[in-house]
């Protein structure tokens, strides 16, 4: 059989499955976005053209949540990246009990984000939580949800504890596979640890880091569970992520307007795709990737 035909056959199952599962919902979404689709109008939704899109684009909350999401993704993504790399480098040495330590660090990855958020919220609860209790016994009175800065810190912390292990394990694995020669040569030449890190480790890790950055930033952008459980977008609307906003639009206990939700999702999708495309182009031009 010719290679070309074989190729098509091999990708066929994947393409079929993806299309089957995503095509129909995607078509529905485009359809919903140009009709007034609510429970009352569900049987025969009226066509409204671009009204839904206009509503979303002129909605203050939409832009606020977008801004928050970008801020959150950038902040949390960078911290997780940094910490993950640092911890991986830290663990890249012979340590007693390293296997066990790694297993402990990986545990938050195995807990569903929703359940983890419930537990974390209780852990910082003013009355019954472990952390405030410990803080109080050393004299610090700190409220985790008092205002925007403290709330932001708390939800960021939850996400960080959950996902640093993800960055860690990938970078750690990569470190393990790096060839020893450049490092040994650097030690012989008397280079400091920092120089070794900067000029050898990081460049060698670049491909891995690229993958990790892409994966983590894409997922952080869709942050939902932590917000839904810990703050519901509060105080006020200041911690609403774009996923949370869209959820509020479509949820039966919220606006429950499927047309608006669909329009918002499509707008966000194109914004992100174009943004990512532009970003990649710029990075390539600057020879960073």
């Amino acid at each position: 059989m010719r290679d070309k035909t074989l190729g098509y056959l091999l990708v066929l199952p994947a393409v079929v499955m993806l299309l089957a599962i995503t095509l129909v919902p995607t078509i529905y979404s485009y359809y919903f976005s140009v009709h007034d689709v609510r429970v009352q109008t569900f049987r025969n939704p009226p066509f409204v053209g671009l009204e839904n899109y206009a509503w979303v684009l002129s909605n203050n909350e939409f832009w606020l949540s977008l801004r928050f999401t970008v801020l959150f993704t950038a902040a949390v993504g960078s911290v997780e990246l940094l910490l993950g790399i640092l911890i991986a480098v830290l663990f890249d040495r012979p340590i007693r009990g390293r296997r066990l330590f790694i297993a402990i660090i990986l545990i938050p990855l195995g807990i569903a984000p929703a359940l983890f958020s419930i537990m974390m919220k209780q852990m910082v609860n003013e009355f019954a939580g472990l952390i405030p209790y410990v803080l109080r016994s050393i004299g610090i009175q700190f409220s985790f949800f008092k205002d925007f800065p403290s709330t932001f810190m708390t939800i960021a912390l939850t996400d960080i504890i959950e996902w640093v292990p993800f960055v860690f394990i990938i970078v750690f694995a990569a470190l393990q596979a790096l060839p020893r020669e450049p490092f040994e040569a650097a030690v012989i030449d008397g280079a400091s640890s920092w120089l070794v890190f900067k000029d050898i480790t990081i460049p060698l890790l670049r491909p891995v880091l690229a993958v990790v950055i892409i994966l983590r930033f894409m997922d952080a952008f869709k942050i939902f569970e932590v917000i839904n459980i810990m703050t519901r977008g509060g105080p006020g609307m200041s911690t609403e992520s774009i996923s949370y906003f869209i959820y509020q639009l479509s949820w039966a206990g919220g606006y429950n307007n499927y047309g608006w939700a669909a329009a918002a999702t499509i707008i966000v999708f194109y914004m992100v795709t174009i943004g990512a495309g532009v970003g990649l182009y710029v990075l390539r031009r600057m020879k960073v990737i």
Partner: protein
Amino acid sequence: MEPLIDMKKLYQKAQMKTSVVAAIAIVTLVVGAVVGYFAAPVKPGEAVTVTTSAPAATQTVTKTVGTVRTPVTIKLNWWPGPESDAIGKVVDYWNKYLAEETGIKVEMVLFGREEHPDKLTSLLLAGNPEPDIVFEYYLVGKLADYLEPLDSYFNNPTLYPYTLGDFFPAAVDAFRVNGVLYGVPTDVSVHVLIYRKDLITKPPETFDELYTMAKQFTKKYNPDSPTEYGFTVSGKNLLYNAMLWGGSVLGSAGGTVFTAGNEKKAVEDLTSPAAKKALKLYVDFVQEGISPPDSVTYEYGEANAAFMAGKAAMYVQWNAAIGEVRDKTKAPLVWDKVGIAPIPGVKQTDGTTLHRSYSHYLGFSINKASTHKTEAFRFIAWLTTTKPMLMYLQNGGFPPDRAVFANDEAVKVRSEIPDLVPILNNYAFASTTHPEVFTIYTILAKHASAAWTGTETIDNALAAAQEELRGILK
């Protein structure tokens, strides 16, 4: 870099250990999974509607209401909580004693609290015939098209040979959409003021009294105060908290509340002095430290926790909390110190104080797409009679049934009934059944919580809420 210890030996030892641990974990899991498989109520892949095999006893069935002959299983939907535990006992009773005679078996299907509205909406929109009986909560107005109208069933003496129990009229009204009855109430939830009766001999009647008393019980202003905070605001940006504030507090301040047919007027009234006064009360409580600083993220559970831990002296809460805070094992610090009072309000021109308590109802409706509507109604009808409702109450539910309340057995179980009856009779009002009810309270929650967290001024918050609601209710 010299290793600290001989890694090879340790590695070998560790390897063995981890393999053993992993093996044990896997074995436990497989055993557990096998046990779980056989514990499954319905085996995967099996047909969903399981017809119970007809025992010989059905031969002796004499009177069966309705035209059912073949044994049938109907599915009853609810969400987890004290009510579902209670209804579970009633369902057990039915299955044990009445299932054979009627040929109807009832099975419970639980949807989690959070996703219940979404799941219910999805399955009704898709035309899923199951569950037959759906648990209703505020969605009657919106989902009416997908629910079975019940008037004809209740008016049919063959189907409904009983007399309807003495339900509070507001309770039944809560299930009427455009005059048509779509459901049956099973629980009432009403707002009350919960306070420490050991510390407060006479509960506050007016807003001013409430504010002064709350300040008195806040350590920040009164170092001798036995409690740290005077009043707990349920401040999370959550629509149920908006009901607490936007229903009872706003209503008692003289503001116009959202009741059926009254929605537009309520929206226009959101910038009235009464509304501002109501919002100012909560804003002051939070900003002045009379309510715990975390309270801006509190919902039902956390507000209870603050009271149960003895940290707060008063709060406005749903009556379901009474059972919890009066429970010796759950609230060892305060269980015998709980007082119930109407929501403090404003003094009116005739000298009386205005008290209003928001109330809403849980209940059942029948899925229009169900294939067992008659059987489902048969069960619901039985449920509305006094004996099952009393059983329901004794097990943790709270049916809006005056006949049940009058029963001594009921008061024995629910000591708060005497406290609640006057509130239900005099001050309670039923929420609107407008299809957008959730949206209304979501919007109110958003802006009100912005005000009491200080992100927005009171005037701006109310104006913004009004603007947004005008758009929704046009």
